[in-house]
């Protein structure tokens, strides 16, 4: 029986993850530059202003997917280095609370990254952000991030720890996260008006992203305990 309530546990885990990030500044000093470099590299690879503007949403979300792998791996590497997860489990902590805490901390970091990438796309790819598309962009990005964070946290919990497991993470996450990539990209396209799309075409994608987020967040919180129970 734990004397700490679940909500307190969630807050504590989340605050710890964010504090670690705040002190180490890995997100700002390493991952954001990596993501921005990726945007630059896409420009070299695709070589064309029209095509860049057209594909900007896809490129932004590709950069998000790959960066999220790095962020979440790090978040679990920190745990296993200190045996923190084991300590929590032995102390009888509710592992689903740990999941929600890490999930939320990851969302915060991913949203910061997203803002930077979208600004990068506006600046570098000439994307037009319309006010009419803003609500769609914000809501779809948030629900996409919730789903992506859930999937990444679940599989990172499985893949963390023993050397050699980390390379498994992208293989596990990326197929499962493909609906997020599809949905987020199409919604962003509609928000930006890329390729002649209208904002109203984006809302079905928000539905898909929300269902995905709900399914994998709750599924993840249930699966997390047994997964970590090594």
């Amino acid at each position, binding site marked *: 029986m734990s004397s700490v309530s679940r909500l307190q546990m969630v807050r504590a885990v989340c605050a710890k993850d964010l504090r670690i990030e705040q002190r180490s500044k890995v997100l700002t000093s390493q991952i954001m530059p990596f993501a921005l470099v990726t945007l630059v590299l896409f420009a070299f690879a695709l070589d064309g202003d029209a095509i860049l503007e057209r594909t900007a949403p896809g490129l932004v979300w590709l950069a998000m997917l790959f960066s999220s792998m790095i962020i979440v791996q790090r978040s679990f590497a920190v745990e296993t280095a200190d045996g923190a997860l084991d300590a929590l489990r032995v102390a009888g902590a509710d592992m689903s609370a740990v999941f929600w805490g890490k999930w939320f901390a990851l969302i915060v970091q991913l949203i910061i990254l997203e803002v930077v990438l979208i600004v990068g796309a506006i600046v570098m790819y000439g994307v037009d952000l319309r006010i009419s598309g803003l609500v769609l962009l914000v809501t779809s990005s948030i629900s996409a991030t919730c789903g992506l964070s859930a999937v990444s946290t679940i599989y990172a919990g499985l893949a963390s720890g023993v050397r050699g497991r980390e390379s498994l993470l992208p293989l596990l996450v990326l197929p499962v996260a493909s609906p997020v990539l599809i949905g987020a990209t199409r919604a962003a396209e509609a928000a930006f008006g890329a390729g002649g799309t209208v904002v109203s075409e984006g809302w079905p994608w928000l539905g898909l992203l929300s269902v*995905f987020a709900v399914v994998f967040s709750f599924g993840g919180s249930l699966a997390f305990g047994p997964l970590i129970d090594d």
Partner: protein
Amino acid sequence: MTSDPPSTVSTTSRRGTATAATRVLGVLTIVMIGWLGVFGLLLSPADRDQGDAVRIMYVHVPSVWLAYLAFIVTALASAVHLFGKGHSMQADRVAGASAEIGVVFMAVTLVTGMLWGRITWGVYWQWDARLTTTALLFISYIGYLAVRGLEGSRSQRARRSAIVGLLAVLEVPLVHWSVRLWRSLHQEATVLGTDLDVSLDGLMLFSLFVGVVAFTLLFLWLLLHRSRVLTMIDLSAETGLDAALAQRRAEGGVTA
């Protein structure tokens, strides 16, 4: 007092994983597959629209049927392991064996599908909902097998892969939904028409039926044998451990 070392080949030991039942099953399977070849390649007619390319369907459709059946069995066995009393290791091994079979036949499905597509559509690949979901499912189950290969105890392996197996099943409808919605934006998909839109005449339908029955029997046969192989692998790991422990005790002078 020394005991006799265990004989490696006992005179009462039967080689292999066969039983009387599996031998019967095996013979039936071979016969059905033989019929499939005869009907598929010779006796059934060419299609009005597709021509002889429809013959590929007689192996392609049973393959995809078997792959999906295998993945359903994996998911069910995973659930039995996770939620059943006793966390049955047998269920875990069935899940693993079934996934191996599923991956092999998913690969066969994709290759035969590509060859069929080359003839009928002129392209090896199309980004429609079914093909794309199949490709992603294939990769997901390769991931499942990779998780089974991670180091750790047998129960860790069982628990991890059971969760991955169940999450993979969860993902299928979501992926299919998203890809279908995605492709509905692009009109070209309907022009090429990926549905098996043939009016199957009697003999063609029969050939397909023979194929599905043959592959179902084959799945059963492969599942039984492959799970038994996995059982033996687990058992010899256990006895290996027991032998090592016994040796340690003997070294320490502790009576067992």
